[in-house]
Structure formats: structure tokens, C-alpha cells
């Protein structure tokens, strides 16, 4: 058994989806970083602007550093509506002039002399972004550095970052979805040749041994080539086998015919009664040999025919009549009443004419040899949905306990001398191949023993 894996489509689709998901995740992560950077940049400007405004407000008056907090600085920061603001103004001596004395983003404020310094820190339990700016102030006591530290909570930044990220996510998700749908369509289209090849193989008659004539993409060519190679080999094998059977048949039959011919030439009149008896036995054995040989070869032929022959509609009446005429010898005992009755309606089955004829012929032959004492009736009838070929004789019939076995090859019945050979086996195998079966009907008062072959009728859908 071959393990059934998930379809190519779902495998491809899954992989594409994984790639898209990874891509989307990467893009979203990048978008998040970008959004955070953008938000930081935007709000840092506000922060820096406010810090500058406040630093500008540091003035030396009366040799005293004074500071007038500009409300506009806070209005600027107020653009981030929900964010809290902390600030601290440090005079050159390091004392906190005003604001929140405990806010200290960095131990070394002097770093901000070169350029404003931004930092993130936690203040009063919340995340804040701080900027430190320095301003040189000159008083009579000399020049020193005053510092303005402004801190703002990060709610607005986070809101902006998450809003930007959300937009990016929506965009990326939409693009990914489109890409996924597009990929699915593309995969479907690309895989169509595979489906088509599958359809061709599925619709193909198993007996059809001609090479596939499908135009397929390069990737599928090895499969088609392999399949064709295999079909060719199989075809060759079947042909070879059939020729072998045919040749063997010829090779065996010719000497056998010569043997019977020569035996038939022996002048019985000159023989002693004993020799005559021996001759009779030779004759019988030769006939038996001939019959078995025929059966053997026909069996092989019939079985191999199903490997390579395509089934066709066959008229059951015709095939039964042909089998009947071919099988009943002209030299039959004149006292034997032999009749054939065709069905009044046309019975069409799907089958192989030759195999089917061989099957029926074998059943009739068997009845003639082992059954019929004075009467043989062959009938084609309809039996429900089945077409039935009935071969009835007035002989003792086959005991029911042997019914199951006589269809086996070379089965020897205890009640019957010799074996029925392959006759029923051929009939049974042909019936089986054609979706039918062989059956038996025991002899009852007034009704003879019958062997029948049932075959499914072709549905009449000629419109």
C-alpha cells in the first residue's frame, strides 16, 4: 500500500502560507520598530521644543537666576493630550530651582552641554521619556551651566506607534491575504496538468496498453515517460506471452493431432481383442489428453486476454448461439435431444466475445461429456438485471457439496470419475472477470440440473 499523503495543493499552499506568514511577521515587526522610531521622533521634537522654551526662560535678574515657566511649553507638550509632564530646572550650583526634584535621568547632566540628551526611564512607576538640555548662564559669580530636564509619559507615543503598527498590520494582512489567494489560484492553475494527467490515467481502460498521448509540462515528463515505458513493457510482455501460448499451442497440438491421426489409421480388424482393447484405451487417453490440452491453452489464453482486451457490448443471444453450434459436435449421439433457445429480447452485456464463448462452450462441453444422457438444453434468458445462460441436462447433475469446488482447477469429485478439468474454472473465471458468476441449480422433480452463467446487463441508456 502506498501511504496517502496530503495533496500537492495543500502542501504547496501550506508552505506558501508559512512563507507569507513569516514575511508578514517580519514586515510587522519592522513596521513596529519603524512606528516606534517615528513616534519617538515626532514626540521627541515636542519634548525638545518644550525643553528649549523652558531653557530660554532661564534669565539672570538681580544676579539671581530666575525662571518663568512658559505655559506655551506645556501647551506644546499638551499636544500629547493624555501624557503627564514632569520637569526639573537645576541651577549651576546643582540645586533644583523648581519642578520635580527627584527626577534624574542621568547622574551626569553635563553630557547635555554638547547636545540635548534623550533617555527612557521609569519615574513614579511609569515609563517616561526625558530630555535634558543645558544652558550656560552668566552671573557675577561667574558662568555656570543650568539644566532643564523635561519628562513626559509615553502614552501618546505608544498610541501613535500602535496606531501606525495597526495600519501596517492591516496593510500587510491584506497584502498577505491577496498573495495567498493569488498563490492558491496560481498553484491550482500550475497543478492543472497533474490533475489532467490523473484524469487521463483514471479514465483509461486498464486493458489499454497504448502509450499515453498527453502533453504535459517538463516536470511531469519523467512520469509520463516512465508510465509509457512501463506500459510498453507490459504490452510487450503480454504480447510475448500470448505468442508464447500460441506457439506452445501449435507445438503441442501438432504432434497430438499427428498422434490421433496415426492411431485412427490402425487397422482394428487385424488386431487381437486384447490389442483392440488397448487401442481403445489409447484412443480415449489421447482424446482426454487433447481435451485437457485444449482447456489448458484456452484457459491461459482467456485469462491473458483480460490483460489486454478492451470489453465491448456483446449480444448474449449471439454468443450463446455461436458457442452452442461450435460445441455440439455433428457426430453427437443421434438419440441426444439438443436444443438452444435464445431470449426474445436483446440481452447485451459488456464482455469479450471470444472469452465469453469459450466459457459457455466449456459449460456445454462439460454437460455433453459428463451430464446429458438424452437431453441438453441451452437457453439465454433475462433474470432481473442479469443476463443468464442456462445449460441444462437430464443427467444426474453435480451434487451440491461439489458446487463450490468444481469451479476450481482440476478438481476431482469423489462421485465422478476423473476430473472436470478446467471447463468450469474457465467459465467461472470469465464470469468473474465480467462481473458475473457461475451458478448451479439442483435437479428437482420435473426440472433438470442446470449450470448457469449470470452476467450484468448493459443499462439501456441509448436515450
Amino acid at each position, binding site marked *: 500500500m502506498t501511504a496517502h499523503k496530503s495533496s500537492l495543493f495543500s502542501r504547496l499552499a501550506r508552505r506558501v502560507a508559512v512563507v507569507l506568514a513569516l514575511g508578514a511577521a517580519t514586515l510587522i515587526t519592522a513596521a513596529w520598530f519603524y512606528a516606534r522610531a517615528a513616534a519617538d521622533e515626532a514626540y521627541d521634537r515636542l519634548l525638545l521644543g518644550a525643553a528649549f522654551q523652558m531653557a530660554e526662560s532661564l534669565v539672570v535678574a538681580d544676579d539671581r537666576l530666575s525662571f518663568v515657566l512658559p505655559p506655551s511649553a506645556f501647551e506644546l507638550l499638551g499636544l500629547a493630550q*493624555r501624557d503627564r509632564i514632569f520637569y526639573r530646572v537645576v541651577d549651576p550650583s546643582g540645586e533644583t530651582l523648581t519642578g520635580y526634584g527627584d527626577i534624574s535621568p542621568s547622574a551626569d547632566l553635563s553630557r547635555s552641554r554638547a547636545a540635548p540628551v534623550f533617555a527612557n526611564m521609569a519615574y513614579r512607576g511609569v515609563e517616561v521619556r526625558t530630555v535634558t538640555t543645558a544652558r550656560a548662564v552668566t552671573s557675577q559669580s561667574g558662568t555656570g551651566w543650568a539644566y532643564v530636564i523635561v519628562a513626559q509619559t509615553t502614552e501618546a507615543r505608544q498610541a501613535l506607534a500602535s496606531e501606525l503598527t495597526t495600519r501596517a498590520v492591516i496593510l500587510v494582512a491584506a497584502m498577505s491575504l491577496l498573495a495567498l489567494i493569488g498563490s492558491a489560484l496560481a498553484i491550482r492553475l500550475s497543478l492543472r496538468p497533474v490533475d489532467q494527467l490523473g484524469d487521463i490515467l483514471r479514465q483509461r481502460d486498464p486493458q489499454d496498453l497504448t502509450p499515453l498521448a498527453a502533453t504535459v509540462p517538463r516536470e511531469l515528463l519523467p512520469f509520463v515517460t516512465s508510465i509509457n515505458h512501463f506500459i510498453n513493457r507490459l504490452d510487450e510482455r503480454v504480447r510475448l506471452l500470448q505468442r508464447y501460448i500460441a506457439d506452445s499451442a501449435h507445438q503441442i497440438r501438432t504432434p497430438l493431432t499427428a498422434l490421433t491421426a496415426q492411431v485412427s489409421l490402425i487397422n482394428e480388424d487385424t488386431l487381437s481383442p486384447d490389442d483392440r482393447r488397448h487401442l481403445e484405451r489409447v484412443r480415449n487417453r489421447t482424446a482426454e489428453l487433447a481435451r485437457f490440452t485444449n482447456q489448458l491453452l484456452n484457459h491461459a489464453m482467456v485469462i491473458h486476454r483480460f490483460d489486454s482486451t478492451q470489453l465491448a457490448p456483446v449480444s448474449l443471444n449471439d454468443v450463446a448461439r455461436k458457442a452452442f453450434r461450435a460445441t455440439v459436435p455433428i457426430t453427437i449421439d443421434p438419440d441426444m435431444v439438443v436444443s438452444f433457445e435464445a431470449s426474445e429480447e436483446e440481452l447485451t452485456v459488456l464482455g469479450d466475445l471470444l472469452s465469453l464463448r469459450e466459457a459457455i462452450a466449456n459449460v456445454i462441453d462439460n454437460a455433453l461429456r459428463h451430464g446429458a444422457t438424452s437431453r441438453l438444453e441451452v437457453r439465454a434468458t433475462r433474470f432481473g438485471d442479469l443476463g443468464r445462460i442456462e445449460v441444462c441436462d437430464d443427467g444426474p447433475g453435480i451434487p451440491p457439496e461439489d458446487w463450490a469446488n468444481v469451479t476450481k482447477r482440476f478438481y476431482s469429485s469423489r462421485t465422478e470419475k476423473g476430473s472436470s478439468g478446467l471447463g468450469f474454472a474457465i467459465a467461472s473465471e470469465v464470469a468473474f472477470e465480467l462481473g458475473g458468476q457461475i451458478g448451479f441449480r439442483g435437479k428437482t422433480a420435473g426440472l433438470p440440473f442446470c449450470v448457469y452463467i449470470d452476467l450484468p446487463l448493459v443499462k439501456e441508456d441509448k436515450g
Partner: protein
Amino acid sequence: MLLPRLVMICLLAMAPRSAGAIEGDKELFPASGTETGKLVVHAATDLEAMRPLVLDFQSQYPGLAVEFVDYVTNDLFREAIDACAGRVQGGDILLSSSVDQLVRLANDGCAQPHNSRDTVNAPDWANWRDEIFGFTFEPIVFVYDRRVVPAKDVPRSHEELADLLRSKPDDYRGRIGTYDIEASGVGYLLAFNDSRQAPTSYGRLIESLSRTQTVIRCCNNEVLGEIAAGNVRLAYNVLGSYAYAASRTNSDLGIVLPRDYTLVLSRGAMIPSTAPNPVLGKLLLDYLLSPRGRAVSREKSFFFSENGPLPAEVDGPTSLMESGIGRPIRIGPALLAAQDEIQRRTFIEDWKRLIEGR
């Protein structure tokens, strides 16, 4: 009459304080039904104005007793800082006209946010961080004594007021009243905003006020009382709600909404982060912001509303907000500037020097 009591409060507020303890005026509104909880309101808001609101609120929640503690704004602020630091037990809700102090509290993490069906009713300028909500609409007005101020003298703008004082200094010397911005948080907030709205006219006005030896009182009602008593002819920067309440009992009081600009203050409400029963505080907050609470507020307590018409007898522009004359004091971080120590100190010093240092 409630005036004597108010005077007493003012005196108390100005008296040297015993260490640590800040005393407010406490009144208990018992539950009408079986008491299931007690809401503690710490307010810097006239109790008489709040009374109809509290009673209506209680009618919705009969199981609630309400303990109403009234402070002056600066005391309320100090008490709230102490409560935030965990030093004393604070209220479940703070109500204050000095919204800059509330903003400072919220900025320092002393508030907790509240979001409900009713909080969305607060206009954008009256909501900061869902922590501070303005629940009133109070234009800042001039009040004058009809008996002594002739109609032609009645100033319709800050400029006109300054001009009046310059042209008739003798008529109004010692007869102009306003807040003591050092004692009154609201006074400081209003003066600070005046200085920002119109720096030039503010400078002129302050100069004129100092020349006319302005009478300085701690609180709205005291200023109004001075007018009623005939000591003051004209008061500057009075909360419209108090003025209107007073004018309903004293028809001599004229109210003018200045037409150059009218500051609009929205009294702030805040749930402290250390509130013992924040759920109860939020109930009251929702009530104050609800249509029902606003209706009671307009009819019985504060008389003005953002969308409603001005009360009769009030002299002012027809459409306060649409005309752009109304300048609401936005509850937001910009108010932090008012709360800066140096800023405050410098501003008050300058003011005192101008007003008193004659």
C-alpha cells in the same frame, strides 16, 4: 443667612493653622433609606450650591450617606497631597474650582481614571486623561451694584473696566473688590489666565486696580457680600454662578459677561488614587456628568451651561461659545505651568507688589 458662616470659614482658612491637621467644614447627608455606604466628598465648592445635587444624587441611591467636607481650594490641595502620600485618609471624590491643582494632582499620579457612559458627556476641554472632569460651566463675570454704578459706567470689557477706573478713580477708589489670589486658588488661576489671555490689558487693569486701592477678599461670596453691604461697587473676576445665586436674592446686583473675552471655568472632579471607596466616588462623578445631574446643576446650583441660554438679567454676549468670547480654561497639562512653584511665587509676588505695594 449663610454669609456670616462663609466669613467665618474664610477667617478660619486664613488663620494660622495647627500643625498637620487641615480642618474643613463638614456636613453629613444621612441616607434616606438603610445606610449601605458612605460617600466622602472633599470639595472646594460652596455647599449650598452643591446641596441640590447631593440630595438629588441621594434620591437615586437612597442607601448612601454623603459626608461633605468643604475646604478652600488651597487647603483641599494640601489635604489631597497628604492623602495621595498616604499620610491621611482622603475623600472618595474631590471637587474643586481650582482645576490647576487637580491637574497637578493627576500629573503626580494621585488620580485614578474613570470611564463610563456618562464620562463621555464631558467636553474635550473638560476632560484630562479620564481622570479629571469638568462638571460645571461657569463664566467669570463682573458684578456691580446697580444702586451706585450708573448704567453708562457699567464696563462691558476688561479694557472698559480699566478705562473706567482711570477716568473716575475717585468714584471707585476702595470700591472695587476682587480675590486675594494668594489665599484663593481660583483667584490665582483666574488672574494667571487673565495675564495670558490679554497680557497688555491685564497689565493696565492691574495698574488701575492698584491705583483704586482694590478691596481684596478671600472668596467669591465675601466679595459679593461686600457689594451687598454697599462697601464695594464693582467686583472683578467673580464666578458667574455665585454671582447669579446672589442676584436672585439681591436684585441690586448686576452681572456682566465681558465682551472682549469671558473666562469659563469648569469645576473639576477627580477620584483620588487613594480613595477609600472609589466606586462611590465614581457614582457621584457619573451623576454630575449625567444629563440629569447637569439639569439639576443648571437649574438649582450653577445656572449656566455650555449649550443653554444665559440666565435672564445677565448682561452678556448672546452666544458665548460660538462667538469665541467664551474662553474655557482647558483642563490639561498647560495648567501645570500655573502650578509651578517659582511661577506661582513670582506671579503672586508681582501681583501683591502691584495691588498692595502702593
